[in-house]
């Protein structure tokens, strides 16, 4: 039987576990074919239920005056012995009765002759023996029936225990399954939270690193700029000094131009 068929029959019979009903109804909403199938079977159920108990005329109860018979267990569970056992039992009983009643087998010529003890005494003995044997056989049969009933009861009880055990195990399995699912969900949520925390932490660290790098870069750039400016200033100063020096020398040359002696001396 397919799982879906089982679900359908449990649903329409009202024996689906309440926790699965909503899920199954959602499944039906998503699957029009399934919905139609369920609806058709519910229709069949409704049709069946039109044949109510009130529609059946029950004849009057006739008291069954049953004599106390042999115990019969579970209706049709009557003990049926194989034929060979019945024949063997009958043969043994006959042989036993014959032996106890003094049956003698004599060979006369080519034929066998049977003879018994005192007929009158033997008849009485025979009757008694037959009674005893019949009673013993009857008692034995009752014992067998009783044993058979006991064995069948034990088997029934065992089957019932197994069914109960299975039902219990199924329940435990479902509970455990649900618990595991719930745990997995919690664990998954916790892991997700931890992961998120780690990502945030890494982001912060990286941000700090980048900010540090930028600060360092800015500092370096500032420093570098200062150094360069200093160098430029120095160069500028040197150039200015050189210009001044040249100016001084130029001035000196122009001065010497007014003083011919000085000019002659210098050239």
């Amino acid at each position, binding site marked *: 039987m397919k799982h879906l068929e089982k679900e359908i029959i449990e649903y329409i019979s009202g024996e689906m576990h309440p926790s699965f009903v909503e899920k199954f109804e959602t499944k039906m909403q998503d699957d029009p074919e399934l919905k139609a199938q369920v609806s058709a079977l519910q229709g069949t159920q409704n049709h069946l239920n039109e044949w109510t108990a009130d*529609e059946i005329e029950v004849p009057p109860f006739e008291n069954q005056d049953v004599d106390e018979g042999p115990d019969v267990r579970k209706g049709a569970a009557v003990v049926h012995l194989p034929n060979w056992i019945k024949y063997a039992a009958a043969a043994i009983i006959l042989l036993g009765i014959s032996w106890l009643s003094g049956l003698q087998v004599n060979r006369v010529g080519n034929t066998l002759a049977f003879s018994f003890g005192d007929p009158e005494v033997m008849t009485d003995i025979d009757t008694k023996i037959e009674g005893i044997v019949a009673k013993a056989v009857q008692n034995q049969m009752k014992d067998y029936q009783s044993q058979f009933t006991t064995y069948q009861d034990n088997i029934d009880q065992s089957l019932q225990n197994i069914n109960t055990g299975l039902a219990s195990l199924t329940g435990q399995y479902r509970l455990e399954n649900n618990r595991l699912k719930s745990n997995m969900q919690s664990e998954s949520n916790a892991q997700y939270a931890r992961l998120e925390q780690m990502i945030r932490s890494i982001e912060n660290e990286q941000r700090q690193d980048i900010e540090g790098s930028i600060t360092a870069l800015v500092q370096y750039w500032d420093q570098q700029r200062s150094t360069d400016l200093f160098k430029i200033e120095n160069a500028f100063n040197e150039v200015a000094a050189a210009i001044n020096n040249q100016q001084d020398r130029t001035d000196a040359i122009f001065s010497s131009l007014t003083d011919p002696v000085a000019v002659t001396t210098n050239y």
Partner: protein
Amino acid sequence: MIDMNKEINVLPLITKIQKGDRQALESLCRSWYPRVYRYALRFTGDEEMAKEASQLTFISVTKGINNLRDPSSYTPWLFRIVANHCRNLHKSKRYHEPEEVLHLTMQTNNNPHRQMERNERIAQVKKALMKIPAEQREVIIMKEYEGLKFREIAAILETSENTVKSRMYYGLNALKKTLTVNKDKIYNEAS
């Protein structure tokens, strides 16, 4: 849902019966007779056979109740007996489809036409039930009419719950087909 022991409180009765109270036995049988008869009629589809199955059931109950160790298991035990008798009788005697629609109790209904339609629908149900396999029929009767749970039916039939559900599923589908065909036939005849 039908209460498993709604007919009568069986537990004290069984205790009395097991102590030899014949009157208690008669009360028990009389109380459960209608339910047993209805089950048998729905299963066999034949009033005489249903009557015979009911009688055989209560003979078995009379003979076997002293060996019933757990009185609370009376209902499943009784249903196991009646189900067995019905199955055996139905196997041994051929089912004759009734010529008349169905012998039904006349319900008080102001609308005779509606009553006739209802009788027709019930007759269809009866015929359809007789067309499905016995093992599916008994599960459907126990579930739909007797209100037993799958677990209880499985215990009565000495099989697994899955088997019972499977028989129910295929039985209902077979009934659906038969009833739909009959419905179409009626509509066609009417038109």
